């Protein structure tokens, strides 16, 4: 059998839950728009969420805090941050960051 009902139900449930989280706020604000006090707060959501995705990925790559030269993610992250600051370019930041990452892996420092 190619599909099993239990797995299909799980996939359907996960799809519904995920779509709910992505669409709920749009549906909520689609008629009257976003209230003004909330707009002020929402302006800072991109900065906050990008930071909350980056900081743990660099400082806790294996799940525990690792501030050492053995943490390749942190070292490559510092290079990427400097590149991003200087160049403002996604491609330059990713290229240089990944190059440092591969070099560290390859040299096995």
């Amino acid at each position, binding site marked *: 059998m190619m599909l099993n009902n239990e797995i299909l139900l799980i996939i359907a449930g996960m799809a519904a839950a*995920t779509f709910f989280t992505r669409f709920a706020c749009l549906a909520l604000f689609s008629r009257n728009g976003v209230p003004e006090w909330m707009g002020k707060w929402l302006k800072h959501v991109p900065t906050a969420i990008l930071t909350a995705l980056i900081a*743990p990925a660099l400082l806790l790559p294996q799940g525990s805090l690792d501030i050492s030269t053995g943490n390749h993610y942190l070292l490559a992250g510092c290079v990427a941050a400097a590149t991003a600051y200087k160049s403002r370019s996604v491609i330059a930041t*990713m290229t240089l960051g990944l190059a440092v990452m591969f070099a560290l892996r390859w040299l096995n420092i």
Partner: protein
Amino acid sequence: MSMARILPSRGNVMTIELQSGIRDSLPVIVGVVPFGLACGIMGITIGMTPLETVLMSALVFAGASQFVAMTMLGAGPAGWGLIVLTTLLINLRHLLMGASLAPYMNRLPVPMQALLAFGMVDETYALTIDRVRQKGYHPGYQLGCNLSFYIAWVASTAVGVFMGERIADPLAWGLDFAMPAMFLALLMPRLMDRTGGLVCILAAVVSVVGAMYLPGKWYIIIACLAASAAGGLLEGKNDAKQ
């Protein structure tokens, strides 16, 4: 030459925006493909069929919750309710992303909003909101990003399924660093004013402490709520002074 040729029609603008979204997504897809491969390999490893594994990527389209669900399934019989609830919790951060795009998207027809919401993942949100910062919002751009990531995710899951256990873990190459690197490039321009810098520092501290002590992805939600609320309050105070 007719006016229609000189002035781009609405259809042309849509195409141009779509292409520009796809173009901006291409370098970033490098970071998603290893996760898609790993997702396909994992599905086969825990005993899902190829069709089920690809179907999950096509319908759920949420990497982190797919990995968690497959881990739960692999550990033995797991209840439907528990897996769906975990998915909901992992994806709660999208509520905040949706709210932050709502002011731009609420003029679109509801079916279009629903279609764009289906494709709103961390990366496509980050690209879309960066385009808002630079030039303003356009649904074509968002659709271009969503389409690129969707195709990359489903296709790389399928490739992972067919490679099965024959290849080594693609995440061990360090390619997963592509994602934080991309986010860094999109974050940096937002830190040029004082409020932006403070929001970033607060979010960094709360998310790191949260990741150390809280289960799951709660650290993202809590850090985002705390730091963005602080940013809103700071701004309110500055307005009052002026």
